[in-house]
């Protein structure tokens, strides 16, 4: 994503000259931008509603969540926000690991750890939204 073409240096001349070609990185790059635009509305809207609107965080409790998730609108909002933010963030972290972890082994295992923990969080969040029970207590 550099704005100017890099100087020549080891590893930069032909970073993907071997192996199969695929457009995976292009789609990942595009996904970061499309998800980013959608997240502007979902995330900034979420932060504004939760932290600023009538009383902000002080008014949030179980009953507040129950009231919100009674509506499919907020369920879908939260679900889309969860998936997009997690996939966007996970792909961002994948880029960062690729940038800094130099040994193949280290890179591989850090990415495995990332994917497993992100998968767990996405699954957990999705289950919570779909199985929420306002009468649990």
């Amino acid at each position, binding site marked *: *994503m*550099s*704005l*100017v073409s*890099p*100087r*020549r*240096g*080891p*590893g*930069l001349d032909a970073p993907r000259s071997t192996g199969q070609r695929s457009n995976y990185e292009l789609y990942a790059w595009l996904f970061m*931008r499309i998800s*980013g*635009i959608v*997240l*502007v509305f979902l*995330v*900034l809207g979420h*932060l504004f509603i939760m*932290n*600023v609107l009538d*009383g*902000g*965080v*002080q008014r*949030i*409790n*179980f*009953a507040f*969540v129950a009231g919100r998730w009674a509506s499919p609108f907020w369920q879908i909002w939260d679900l889309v926000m*969860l998936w997009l*933010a*997690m996939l966007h*963030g*996970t792909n*961002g*972290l994948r880029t*960062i690991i690729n*940038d800094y972890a*130099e040994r193949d082994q280290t890179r591989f295992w850090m990415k495995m750890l990332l994917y497993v*923990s992100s998968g767990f*969080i996405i699954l*957990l*969040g999705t*289950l*919570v939204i779909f*199985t*929420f*029970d306002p009468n*649990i*207590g």
Partner: protein
Amino acid sequence: MATAPVGTLYRGREGMWSWVAQRITGIAVFFFLYVHVVDTALVRVSPEAYDLVIATYKTPIVNLLEVGLVGAVLYHALNGLRVIAVDFWSKGPRYQRQMLWVILGVWVAVMIPGTYYMMIHTVEALFGSTP
């Protein structure tokens, strides 16, 4: 990746620092999101468990941290839009520096009232000024 870089991709100035900040805020927000999904998941345990964890968000220190989180997300979002403009708008690269100052201006303009509304309850509770 090579071990001893000859020359460097890091060029300093606004372009590099805005990217460094994009990276740091992205990582911070991502790890907060992990925590936040887990604390919200306590609604599946019991109303008491959820209300207990949410109570920590209402304490002065976490309230202040939350302002920091909002500031990080807001910067990341605004600068993200700037990066998108640089990539897709034909004049984007030429105006990348001006756009950085614009988004920083927007950031300050939003964070001043934002901090006020987020902190007002905490400040009143701490210093108890009832007019």
